[in-house]
């Protein structure tokens, strides 16, 4: 259907359960802002929301080029939702490049709003279009709405004291105004926000507000749209809510660990996408006694944190995949010296530099095994953006109680994704306890607590506890250098047992859906939303499908093996080539079916449902359209 069809003057209002919108434009077009503002407005309205920004690695790729396209997808619903949506129902494309990169994802029949003015021969060429898609009929599957946004915006801003370039930059407010109208959302929140945001620049404020109103008014007066849409508020638990991204939640969680333990937080880090936000967030919070240190490299970042841990502080370092590689040797020093240290890895896609702004779960085996010697560390992985908060606190609870390094595996999808979060009260926060070495007649640096196997934390400044530690193998109690063969054997086992025993101190693996049945989807990390939703949809279709999600990867919950054995088949969907699958097969001898996506993009619920149907024999074998289903085989 195209826009040439005349529409009735009286617009229809369609009630929808859920809408997914993607805003796409040049990276300088302000699409992240547009998406964020729409998100906030819908949250205040009462919808449940999930978002996914998708931006290029280049800060400013050439204007109008394909690599310079920046997008922001959000899904809002009158029900509880867990993902930012498989396929957008509506796409706003501010130029030909944005159209080209994104239109393939739009659902057939979806609403496609474009800035017609930007479809110039020059811009079409930059986007590698040989003909104008607005005219060649290639967009026939969508409701195409061509609007001269640039021109309309110019007219609306006539007389504002801004140059042409600055006026052009407020087109995103025009688009926002239009979309707010389309979904029946008020302008007030955005007006209030913009007034605060641009208070020091009245001309920009004036321009943006005029653009916003003009977009909204255009929607009201035009007859281009067949219908307006309404998504009723969701039924959510009463309380005070805010938006939170995974990276914000991560930072807040670590501050909470500091507040709850009473230990000052030290954060050593080296800038790296997509983990730098954690450094930015913590650097602002000096009033909490937090010291942040931007080190000269990744090794210095973890080294400084280990130094702070040795000094009795709450020690944290953060990075992404390539940085974790560099930190391996120092992490092993933390393993040998048995000091509490938390390492954040906000995973990105691919080996080496890979795709820094894209998400993946491919550092699991690196976290497990990429160190010399037999070297076991605790590995945690939050499941949702807000879960990052709770797991950050948990990371330090474990590190301090067991004197052990902990790797906290977030990912780009969790880190940048956001969701509404019911703000916890201080009373909701768990305890985080620690103790320094206490005077005892038989004090020795490696004389362990018999229950936790933790060694005493004797910190400089404590008189009578002067001692030496290091990376050389330790004598079992004294911590002195030891090359004794039997001692090394014992120490290796003790270091591993110390981690394994933590299984007794973490929650059991929970099954969503029946505790036994035909099929279990087992996931970990940021795929929680898609996996849980796919299994739930399958159950609604009458299938015997449950899901379970590992937030503890090492050690795994002690009932993990039992959970797996209660299902005839197990699918392990992962955004990697089969890393958890390998662990599960190795640890539990379960012939799990891997389902792997390695595109830098999250799972779509539909992809998982198709896999479920294939495994249950309802359809033929299912593979992702762009590649083999898995590196380990499986159908």
């Amino acid at each position, binding site marked *: 259907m195209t826009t040439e069809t005349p529409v009735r003057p009286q617009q229809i209002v369609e009630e929808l359960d859920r809408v997914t919108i993607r805003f796409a434009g040049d990276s300088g077009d302000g699409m992240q802002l547009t998406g964020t503002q729409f998100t906030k407005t819908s949250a205040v309205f009462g919808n449940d929301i999930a978002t996914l920004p998708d931006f290029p690695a280049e800060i400013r790729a050439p204007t109008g080029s394909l690599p310079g396209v920046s997008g922001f997808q959000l899904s809002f619903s009158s029900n509880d939702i867990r993902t930012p949506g498989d396929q957008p129902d509506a796409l706003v494309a501010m130029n030909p490049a944005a159209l080209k990169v994104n239109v393939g994802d739009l659902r057939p029949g979806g609403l496609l709003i474009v800035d017609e003015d930007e479809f110039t021969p020059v811009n079409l060429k930059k986007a590698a279009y040989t003909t104008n898609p607005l005219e060649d009929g290639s967009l026939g599957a969508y409701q195409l709405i061509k609007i001269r946004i640039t021109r309309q915006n110019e007219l609306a801003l006539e007389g504002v004291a801004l140059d042409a370039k600055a006026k052009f930059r407020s087109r995103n407010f025009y688009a926002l105004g239009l979309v707010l109208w389309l979904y029946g959302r008020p302008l007030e929140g955005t007006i209030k926000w913009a007034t605060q945001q641009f208070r020091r620049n009245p001309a920009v404020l004036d321009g943006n507000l005029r653009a916003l109103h003009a977009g909204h008014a255009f929607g009201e007066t035009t007859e281009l749209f067949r219908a307006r849409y309404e998504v009723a508020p969701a039924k959510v638990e009463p309380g005070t809510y805010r938006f939170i991204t995974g990276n914000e939640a991560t930072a807040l969680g670590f501050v909470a660990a500091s507040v709850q333990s009473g230990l000052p937080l030290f954060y050593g880090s080296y800038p790296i996408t997509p983990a730098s936000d954690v450094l930015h967030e913590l650097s602002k919070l000096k009033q909490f006694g937090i010291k942040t*240190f931007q080190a000269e490299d990744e090794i210095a970042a973890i080294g*400084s944190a*280990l130094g702070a841990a040795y000094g009795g502080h709450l020690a944290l370092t953060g990075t992404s995949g390539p940085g974790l590689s560099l930190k391996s040797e*120092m992490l092993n020093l933390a393993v040998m010296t048995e000091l509490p240290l938390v390492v954040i890895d906000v995973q990105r896609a691919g080996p080496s530099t890979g795709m820094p702004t894209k998400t993946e779960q491919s550092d699991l085996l690196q976290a497990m095994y990429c160190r010399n010697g037999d070297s076991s560390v605790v590995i945690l992985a939050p499941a949702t953006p807000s879960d990052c908060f709770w797991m950050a606190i948990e990371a330090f609870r474990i590190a301090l109680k067991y004197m052990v390094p902990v790797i906290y595996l977030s990912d780009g999808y969790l880190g940048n994704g956001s969701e509404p979060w019911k703000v916890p009260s201080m009373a909701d926060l768990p305890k985080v306890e620690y103790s320094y070495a206490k005077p005892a007649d038989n004090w020795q640096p490696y004389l362990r607590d018999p229950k936790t196997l933790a060694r005493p934390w004797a910190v400089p*400044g404590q008189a009578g506890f*002067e001692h*030496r530690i290091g*990376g050389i193998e330790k004598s079992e109690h004294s911590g002195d250098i030891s090359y004794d063969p039997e001692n090394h054997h014992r120490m290796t086992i003790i270091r591993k047992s110390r981690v394994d025993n933590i299984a007794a101190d973490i929650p059991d693996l929970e099954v969503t859906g029946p505790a036994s049945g035909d099929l279990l989807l087992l996931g970990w990390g940021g795929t929680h939303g898609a996996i849980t939703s796919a299994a739930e949809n399958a159950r609604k279709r009458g299938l015997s499908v449950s899901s379970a999600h590992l937030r503890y990867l090492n050690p795994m919950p002690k009932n993990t093996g039992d959970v797996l054995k209660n299902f005839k088949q197990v699918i392990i969907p992962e955004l990697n080539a089969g890393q958890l699958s390998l662990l599960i097969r190795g640890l539990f001898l379960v012939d799990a079916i891997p389902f792997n996506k390695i595109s830098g993009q999250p799972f779509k619920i539909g992809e998982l449902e198709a896999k479920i149907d294939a495994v249950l024999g309802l359809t033929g074998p299912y593979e992702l359209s762009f590649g083999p289903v898995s590196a380990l085989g499986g159908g």
Partner: protein
Amino acid sequence: MVATVANGNLISDLPVLTRKDFVSDQEVRWCPGCGDYSILAQMQKMLPELKIPRENIVFISGIGCSSRFPYYLETYGFHSIHGRALTLATGLKTARPELTVFVITGDGDGLSIGGNHLLHAMRRNVNLNVILFNNRIYGLTKGQPSPTSEMGKVTKASPYGTTERPLNPIRIALAAGATFVARAVDRDIKHLEETLYKASQHKGTSFVEVYQNCNIFNDGAFDAFTNKDVRQERMTYIEHGKPIRFGKNLEHGVRLNGFTAEVVENAQSDEGLLIHDEHAVNPTLANILVGMDYPEFPVPVGIIRSIEEPTFEDMVQAQVDEAKSHDPADFASLLRGSETWVVE
């Protein structure tokens, strides 16, 4: 004036510590005749003079022969990994500014694998005492060339001689903006002890290069000018405010000719001789001194540079204190963030 230490004790209340109090129960395992023994002995002699309780002193090392040092001192000690001692020391000192921290490193550990960290610790001016044992060889790995080995050095790893130029550690320290730079020699024990003491009294990064003999893999590397019988002739003990002189009776001097130093043999008067100013903010003089090397010049030892600059950890702490002084650190409010909405 009454000084206090971190745990609130008055210095006068502290038990008087002696050299023996700083000797740990660990068996020293350097090769007999190694220059490290002397450095350890001078350190153990010097530490009581600091009048700091043992528990507030930390020795951190990397990897290499020199890095075994912390095991032999009855203080807190951390034998870390190759080249990275300064990273731990920087974190520890930033978290706990009240501690006295020594970093023990070598020419391989500090200038090769750990070169980056050395630059950055000195540029930040973290209040650490960095003692770099320079023996111009990799000893623990059994004799490969190091970044300070002379060009053409023949070793097992360079049977035809090395093809790389050596680094001058002092030049690196000056270039990185170190606020205290000194050089000493393992076998000149009184001067070494004095230099270690002055380094530990300096607030900011103190960098001390110690010429240290490896009698197994690079024996006599510094003999040409450190041997007792030639020392006076071939080294110059520089002192603040005094002319650069050397010789058995300090009869020779050094003066400037343009931007270049030149030796004045039998300089009768100090007139025209280079006068050492360790507090000069401009590092030009220090750079001229550090360019002096045997055999053209006497090798300068002593305090080359000592200037005052704010330390890294003090500035970090000041920012925290400042933030605390005007912000109540209300975590509940931080949890709520800037925008919230209420669902009834």
